[in-house]
C-alpha cells in the first residue's frame, strides 16, 4: 500500500542521512610534513604490484554505493558517491595517502621545500606534470589544463561545489607546458590544498572551454580523463559502466577489464550483497549495527572483509548554551539568551560523566571506537590527556554528586529542579536505527541522574538542511548528536567551528559553524596562535591543547571515533588501500583479484 512505498523511500533517505555529515569529506590534502628528501618521489604510492598483474586480465569489478551517482565531474559533486565515481576517470595532481601525505597522480613528484617545489615563504607551490600523459582522446595533458580547471572552478557562475577549497588560491599560472605554479594569498601550512584528492580533479580544457561559467550546466556530462577507466554508459541516479582507458599511462594496469558502479538500496542490503550473496566486490559505507554486520562478516562462508581506516570523524553530543525555549519567540536560540541550566559547568560535566561509551561503541563494532577526544585523525596530534580527565569517566555516582553540588535538588516527580527550572532535555538527532539506539543508551543514564529526557529524531535531509525549525544549525534543542570531523588532515577548517566569531544568530541565517554557541576566550587565543604557526610540531601541540579545552569545558561530548571508509570488500580483492583523506577508489588502478 501507499504508506509502505513511502516508508521505504524514507528509510533509504534516513540511512543516507547518517553519513550526511561525512559527505563532502573528500577534501584534500596533506600536512606540511616535510618528507625526507626524495622519499615522497621515490616511494611508490602503492604496494609493489603483484608480478602477474596484466592489463585487462580480470573480468568485471562491481562496486555498490547505496547512494546513486548523479554527476561525473568532481567539481559538481553532490556527495562522496559523485567524487568517487568521477575518480576512476578524472585524476588530481596528487592523491592523499592513508598517512595524510600526498602521493603523485598526474604530478611527477611531490613538491617540497627541500626540492624547491614549495617556496621558502610557504606561499607558492610548483608542480611538474608526469611526462607523456595523455587524455583518453589521445591529446596531451598540459599545464594549461590545470590553469583552466582553476578558472572553471573559481568562476562563480560555474557553481562548482569545490569552489571553497580554492578560496585561498590567489593565482595559478603555467610556467611551461608541463609546469604549473599555484600561489596562495598568504603563507600556508598546507600548500597541497589545491588540485589534490577528491576536490582536485583536473578536467580537459579542450572539452570544457566552451562551458565555463553559466554555460557549465550544459557541459558534457561525461568527462574525458586521464584515469585508468573511461565511461561507457552513465545513467544518472542508477549505474555507471566503465572500460579501460587505452591511453592509461601504466601499460600493466588496470587489472579489471570493466567496472560497474551501481547505486541505490540501503546500507544493510549493500552489506548482504558483498558479504552473503557476493554479488558485488566493493560495497560502500556499511553503516549497519554491529550486531547485524558482524555475523555476516564472521560467517564461515562469509565473502567479505571490512575496509576501514582511522578518520577524524567523531560522533558527538553538542550542548546548547543558548535557550531554545519556544516561548522566547524570536529570541529563541539567540546567543544572548543563556540556557537555564546547561551554562553551568557542573551540570555539563555531570552529563558527560553519565555517558557509557562502551555499549555505544559496541553498536558501531568494526566501524568505530570509543573516544573522549574531539580532534583526532592523526596519532601525532591526538591528545593523550583526556583519558585521565574525570569528565571522560563513566561514573553515575559522581555525576549525581555534581548535580547536588550545583544545587539541583530532586522534585516530587524525581526530576531535578535547577534554580526553579525543571531539568528537561530535548535530545535530537537524525533518523537512523543506530542513532536511536545511542539515544536510548544515553537517555537511560541521564534519567538516572534525575533528568527528564525527551528524544527526537529528524529526517537527515531536514536536520542538515536550512528549512524549518528542526535543523542542526538553528539548534532549537537542548542537546543534539551527529558526526563531524576535519576534511583536511591539517584540521584548519574544523577547529574554526569552535571560535566565538562562528556563533551566528537568526539574522545571519545561523550560517556559522559554532552551533553550540560556545564562546571561550582562552580557546580563541589558542586558535589565533594556531593560525599563525607554521611549525608542524607546535601546531600539533596546539591542536591537542584545543582538544583538551573543548573536552574539559564540555562544549561537546565526544562519543565514538568512526572509521572512514567503513566499506565492505570481497575477500578476493587485493591492493585496496583505505584512506580517510581521499576517495576510497584513489588507487583503483592497482586493484586485482
Amino acid at each position, binding site marked *: 500500500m501507499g504508506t509502505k512505498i513511502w516508508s521505504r523511500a524514507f528509510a533509504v533517505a534516513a540511512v543516507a542521512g547518517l553519513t550526511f555529515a561525512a559527505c563532502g569529506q573528500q577534501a584534500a590534502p596533506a600536512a606540511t610534513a616535510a618528507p625526507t628528501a626524495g622519499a615522497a618521489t621515490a616511494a611508490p604510492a602503492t604496494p609493489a604490484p603483484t608480478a602477474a598483474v596484466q592489463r585487462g586480465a580480470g573480468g568485471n569489478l562491481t562496486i555498490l554505493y547505496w547512494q546513486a551517482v548523479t554527476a561525473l565531474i568532481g567539481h559538481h559533486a553532490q556527495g562522496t558517491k559523485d567524487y568517487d565515481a568521477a575518480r576512476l576517470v578524472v585524476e588530481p595532481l596528487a592523491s592523499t595517502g592513508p598517512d595524510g601525505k600526498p602521493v603523485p597522480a598526474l604530478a611527477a613528484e611531490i613538491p617540497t621545500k627541500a626540492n624547491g617545489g614549495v617556496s621558502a615563504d610557504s606561499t607558492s607551490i610548483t608542480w611538474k606534470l608526469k611526462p607523456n600523459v595523455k587524455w583518453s582522446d589521445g591529446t596531451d595533458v598540459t599545464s594549461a589544463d590545470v590553469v583552466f580547471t582553476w578558472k572553471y572552478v573559481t568562476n562563480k557562475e560555474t557553481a562548482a561545489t569545490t569552489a571553497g577549497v580554492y578560496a585561498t588560491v590567489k593565482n595559478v599560472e603555467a610556467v611551461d607546458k608541463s609546469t604549473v605554479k599555484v600561489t596562495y594569498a598568504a603563507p600556508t601550512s598546507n600548500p597541497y590544498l589545491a588540485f589534490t584528492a577528491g576536490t582536485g580533479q583536473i578536467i580537459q580544457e579542450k572539452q570544457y572551454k566552451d562551458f565555463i561559467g553559466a554555460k557549465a550546466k550544459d557541459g558534457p556530462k561525461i568527462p574525458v580523463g586521464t584515469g585508468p577507466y573511461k565511461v561507457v554508459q552513465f545513467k544518472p541516479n542508477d549505474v555507471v559502466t566503465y572500460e579501460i582507458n587505452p591511453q592509461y599511462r601504466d601499460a600493466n594496469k588496470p587489472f579489471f577489464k570493466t567496472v560497474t558502479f551501481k547505486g541505490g538500496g540501503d546500507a544493510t542490503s549493500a552489506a548482504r550483497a558483498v558479504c552473503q550473496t557476493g554479488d558485488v566486490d566493493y560495497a560502500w559505507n556499511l553503516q549497519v*549495527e554491529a550486531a547485524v554486520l558482524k555475523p555476516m562478516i564472521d560467517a564461515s562462508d562469509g565473502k567479505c572483509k571490512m575496509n576501514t581506516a582511522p578518520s577524524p570523524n567523531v560522533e558527538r553530543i553538542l550542548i546548547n548554551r543558548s535557550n531554545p525555549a519556544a516561548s522566547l519567540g524570536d529570541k529563541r536560540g539567540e546567543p544572548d539568551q543563556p540556557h537555564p541550566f546547561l551554562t553551568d559547568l557542573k551540570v555539563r560535566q555531570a552529563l558527560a560523566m553519565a555517558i557509557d561509551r562502551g555499549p555505544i561503541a*559496541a553498536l558501531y563494532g568494526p566501524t568505530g571506537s570509543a573516544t573522549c577526544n574531539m580532534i583526532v585523525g592523526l596519532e601525532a596530534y591526538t591528545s593523550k590527556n583526556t583519558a585521565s580527565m574525570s569528565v571522560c569517566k563513566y561514573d553515575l555516582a559522581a555525576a549525581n554528586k555534581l548535580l547536588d553540588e550545583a544545587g539541583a535538588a530532586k522534585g516530587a516527580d524525581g526530576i531535578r529542579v535547577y534554580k526553579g527550572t525543571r531539568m528537561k532535555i530535548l535530545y535530537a538527532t537524525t*533518523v537512523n*536505527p543506530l542513532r536511536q539506539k545511542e539515544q536510548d543508551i544515553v537517555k537511560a543514564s541521564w534519567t538516572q541522574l534525575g533528568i527528564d529526557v525527551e528524544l527526537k529524531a529528524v529526517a537527515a535531509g531536514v536536520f542538515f538542511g536550512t528549512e524549518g525549525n528542526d535543523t542542526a544549525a538553528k539548534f532549537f534543542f537542548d542537546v543534539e548528536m551527529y558526526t563531524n570531523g576535519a576534511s583536511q588532515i591539517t584540521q584548519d577548517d574544523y577547529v574554526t567551528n569552535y571560535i566565538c566569531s562562528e556563533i551566528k544568530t537568526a539574522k545571519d541565517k545561523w550560517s556559522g559553524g559554532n552551533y553550540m554557541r560556545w564562546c571561550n576566550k582562552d580557546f580563541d587565543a589558542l586558535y589565533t596562535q594556531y593560525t599563525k604557526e607554521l611549525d608542524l610540531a607546535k601546531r600539533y601541540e596546539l591542536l591537542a591543547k584545543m582538544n583538551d579545552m573543548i573536552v574539559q569545558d564540555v562544549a561537546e561530548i565526544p562519543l565514538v571515533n568512526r572509521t572512514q571508509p567503513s566499506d565492505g570488500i570481497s575477500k578476493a580483492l587485493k591492493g585496496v588501500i583505505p584512506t580517510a583523506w581521499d576517495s576510497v577508489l584513489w588507487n583503483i588502478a592497482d586493484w586485482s583479484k
Partner: protein
Amino acid sequence: MATTTANAPRLAEGEWRRPARSLWSDAWHHFRRHRLAMAGVVVLGIIVVATLFGPLLWTVPYQKLDYSAALVGPSPAHPFGTTDLGHDLFARILWGGRISLAVGLTAVLIAISLGTLVGALSGFFGGTLDDLLMRLTDMFLSLPQLPLLLLTIYLFRDMLRELVGPELGIFILIVTVVGALTWMPTARLVRASFLSIKRKEFVEAARTVGATDRRIIVRHILPNVMSPVLVSATIGVGAAIITESALSFLGLGFPSDVPSWGRVLYDAQNFMEIAPHWAIFPGMFIFLTVLSINYMGDGLRDALDPRRTQR
C-alpha cells in the same frame, strides 16, 4: 378442540416470556453463533486487557537496558526475548499495544463517524447539499495522505507539544489526520446505501406514520447500511496502525523510545535472521489484532443484516 383452547394461553404465555426483541439483541443472538467473530472478540479482548493491565503485573520497565541479556530468545525471564540493547520485548509489546490500539481504534472511530455523517446527510437530503458534500469528498479523495500528514505534523506538532506534551500531542495529530483523511470511502458507501434504501417501502411507511427525518435516518436507514461501514472500518484499523508505524520511522511519529508495535517491528527488520523473535511477536500482535477486528466486522455485518433475520 379442547387441546387447542388449552394450548392457546400457554403459547401466549410463552410469547410473553420471551424478552423484547430489539435490533441489538437480535444482532447479538446472531453474532454469538458466528464462531470466527466470537473468536475475534475473545482474542481482541485478551489483547486489550493484556495491554491495559499487563504492565501492572509484568513490572519490568520497557525502557530498561540490560547489555548482558541482549538478543536472547524467549525464556522465563523474557517471555518474548530481548532486543539488541536488552530491552524486554514482552514489556515493550504490552506497553506499545496501548498506543497502537488506541491509535487504530480512535482514528477509525473518527473516520466512520465523519464518513457516516457526511454520507447520511448527502444521501438522505440530496440536492444542493449532496452536490456540495460529494464535491468535498472528491476533494479529500484527491489529497495525498502521507505528504499531508507530514505537513500537518510539521505545522502543528510544536504547538501541540507545548500544550499537551510530546506523546499526547502526536497522538491527537495522528488520529485526527488519519481519521480526517480516511472517511471518504465510508461516506460514499453510506450515501449509496441511503439513496437506495430511502425509497424502500418501510421508509415510506415510517414517513407516513409521521417519523421525523432524524428518526428515519437513525432508526430505519442507518441499521441497514451498517454492514459496509463496519467492513470498511475494520480495514481502517490495520491501516491506521501501519500509518502510525510509518510515521514513527520517518521520525515524525511518537518519540523513538515509545515502543508502539510498528516501531518495534521496524527496529527488528535488520535482525530478522539473528533474532526472529524480535519481529515475530509485534508482527503477530498486529496480525492478530487486525484479523480479530476483521472477523468481528464479518460477524457484525451478518448479524446486523436485516435480510438475514428473516431467514
